[in-house]
């Protein structure tokens, strides 16, 4: 087991190198000169433009630019933003906390709702409970998040006055964004849980368990859920990654700083170091999540052994 974890952690290095090369090349292939974007609609002479290009280090060969970037990484130096010269690590650090808080809260909402609705509709298959739960899930899948977010603000902030409209600082500012983001991801989860549970319910070992006279709750918890979870937990892992790095709309509507928003802004400004830093961080999150998901398989299904 430990050897497996160690091997997987070693694989992080080539994966990150591949990600960094890909991002670096893609950024340079997309049209748009960062120096021109820097000046935007401000007056600038060709000489100043050239000078800023030089200050940004864009006049060096691509290989040199990449090498200078990579050299700093082992020292924890991800470079500085070419736009406002803030260290990339600091730009990330100031946003990771806010993103992580939102992702965790939204994940809790998604898991609670997704598992609850999915399980309920599978166990009450064909009844109005099933139809109702799946209707909620359908609404979650089809509802644009900016609309849901605006409605939540309208009802719970403007009309009822229960929560503040903007989501930064303090637990009560986290509720609305977490519900908006969590509800939308819970929908996918609910549908997946329902189909997985239904599939397992038809397995002969469930009938065996029931015929042994086990309590239904024990049958569901020990035999059905554990087996149905292999597929569900993979999706949950990926969803957490998305909640952490892809909550741009939620972050914008609720005025929260976050990694997703940082990345989108950096792409539109072609701020190479920030984009690279943010993508590396997101890649690392996914690698760690996938490892955790893989490890959880062994717990859920004792037949799986890591050698």
């Amino acid at each position: 087991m430990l050897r497996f974890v160690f091997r997987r952690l070693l694989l992080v290095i080539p994966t990150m190198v591949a990600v960094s090369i890909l991002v670096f090349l893609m950024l340079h292939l997309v049209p748009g000169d960062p120096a021109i974007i820097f000046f935007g609609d401000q007056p600038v002479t060709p000489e100043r433009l050239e000078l800023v290009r030089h200050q940004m280090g864009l006049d060096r060969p691509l290989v040199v630019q990449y090498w200078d970037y990579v050299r700093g990484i082992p020292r924890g130096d991800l470079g500085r933003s070419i736009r406002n010269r803030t260290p990339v690590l600091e730009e990330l650090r100031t946003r990771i906390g806010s993103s992580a808080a939102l992702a965790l809260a939204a994940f809790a909402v998604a898991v609670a709702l997704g598992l609850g609705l999915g399980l309920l509709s599978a166990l009450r298959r064909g009844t109005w409970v099933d139809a109702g739960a799946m209707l909620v899930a359908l609404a979650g899948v089809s509802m644009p998040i900016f609309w849901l977010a605006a409605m939540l603000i309208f009802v719970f902030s403007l009309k009822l006055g229960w929560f503040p409209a903007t989501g930064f600082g303090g637990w009560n500012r986290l509720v609305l964004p977490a519900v908006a983001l969590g509800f939308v991801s819970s929908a996918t989860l609910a549908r997946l849980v329902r189909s997985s549970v239904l599939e397992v319910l038809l397995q002969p070992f469930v009938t065996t368990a029931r015929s042994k006279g086990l309590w239904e709750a024990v049958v569901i918890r020990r035999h059905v859920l554990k087996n149905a979870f292999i597929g569900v937990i993979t999706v949950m892992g990926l969803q957490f990654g998305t909640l952490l790095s892809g909550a741009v709309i939620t972050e914008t509507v609720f005025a929260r700083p976050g990694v997703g928003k940082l990345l989108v802004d950096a792409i539109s400004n072609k701020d190479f170091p920030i984009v690279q830093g943010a993508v590396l961080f997101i890649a690392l999150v996914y690698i760690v999540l996938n490892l955790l998901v893989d490890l959880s398989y062994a717990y859920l299904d004792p037949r799986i052994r890591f050698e």
Partner: protein
Amino acid sequence: MDRIPRRELLKRAGVGIGTLAASQMLPRWLLDRAYAQGTTALTYGMAGGFDTLDVTATTFTRVGRIALHIIDPLVWALGPGQYAPGLATSWTVSPDATAYTFSLRQDVKFHDGTPLTADAVKVTFDRIVDPNTRAQTAFSFIGPYDRSEVVDRYTVRVRFKSPYAAFLDGASSPYLGIISPAAVQKYGQDFGRVVFVGTGPFMLQSYSTDAEVRLIRNPNYAWGAPSFNHQGRAYLESIVYRIVPEDATRLATFETGETLFVEDVPVTDYQRLKNSRDKVLLEIPQAGSGWSLMMNQTRSPTNDLAVRRAMMHAIDKGGLVKTVWNDVFKAACSPLTPNMFGFDAETCRKVPYNPDQAKRLLDEAGWRAGPDGIRVKGSERLRLEFFLQTAPQKNIEMAAFIQANAKQVGIEVNLNVAARPAYLDAVRQGRHNLQFWWETGTDPGQILRILFHSENAGGGTNRNNYRSPEMDRLIQQIDATADPAQRQGLVSKAQQRALDDAVMVYLADPPSLYARDRSVTGVWVDWGGNYPYFFNTRIQR
């Protein structure tokens, strides 16, 4: 599982319902506490983030809005061409407008305790032109700066390479606000990112990127400008600028009292706030150049004067401001907004909306209607490439209106909606026929230079790529002329020239729209509509 007695069940249900009810009350109670603004802290809803708090290096007006509280300008602009003492008690201008001598107040200290001297002015201005600072807005405001000379401890002379009559306008902006040389030296690249030290009535307490900026009162402030009738400390203890980019959310925070002052009120909320009992809308005509269309003269078919003239007559500006801007914006006439020094009212009569006139002009120039109604000349179709950015949404609404108007007279407008990098690539390289422009500023010479001077053509801000020696000469004369009457004549002439050469189509003049809670009083906004200033502000409940 044991059976629960009925009495126990009811008891448990009662506790459950009670807890639920209490939980419903809890957020309201916490919320009241969260919203309790008191009478000493102002929370400001800001419409977006920015690059850096360093007012010398930024391009963002929002940074100027915050920074005006942290720094003090040398002079205050009370109206077009009217200046009052700030950090400078008096000043003289050389007859050729190449040297300005300022006498500074002698009782001023920076937030770090160091005194304000002539040297600080020199350091601030030298830093603006230092290539390492990469100053942008401040760089425009400081014009043809040559050097600053420290005459004595409290007297500084600022010299320019060529006449620069607009310098007082620049010196009144927050971007040329005086910063602490000691702090600049101590913090280097981190100045503006983690610290920002000036002499203003508020000090930077904290800055969370994309979230909020907190300012606290400067307890030692005793040099309020005479025009504010109040010398000592500010009345507010703190100002919190919360960054809320989404219009609806920002307005929601304002309605709930989470913010007490908001900027960029959407035109859709204009009427509602105007009629509100507990909110007050502040509407200040914006100074500068309103929304307009630049027409690229180096690309066919906008290199044809007749096509540009036809575009000027083809667009129904009255209809545009009504449809897109709910009549909150006003139809524009000139490259300058009506409140600018030297605005020529004659321009409003010169180019009326007249589609028939537009058609006549195109007919005379040989553009004949083709089978689908779009005109052709020889083998060339009258098709204009219009490049615009994805945001703001109003851009796209205006462009669609223009497209429909142009079609009426036989001009096809092709909309290229692009993300910022691709958009800037296209327009800087001149691949466009049309693009939007909008500019705030309070000096006519500076605005006209940005729009029309040939030094800004070919990839700069003059994306009309308009090159006229006469216009260049007029702009240079405006910059060199301090005499108001003479200057006014020159500014007027430049506007007429721009209309005669059909350089741009002037669409809509916007107001700056802010809103305050009725409890907030004593807000001062500069005449250009850009900088709400809270030195005299009180919150009265």
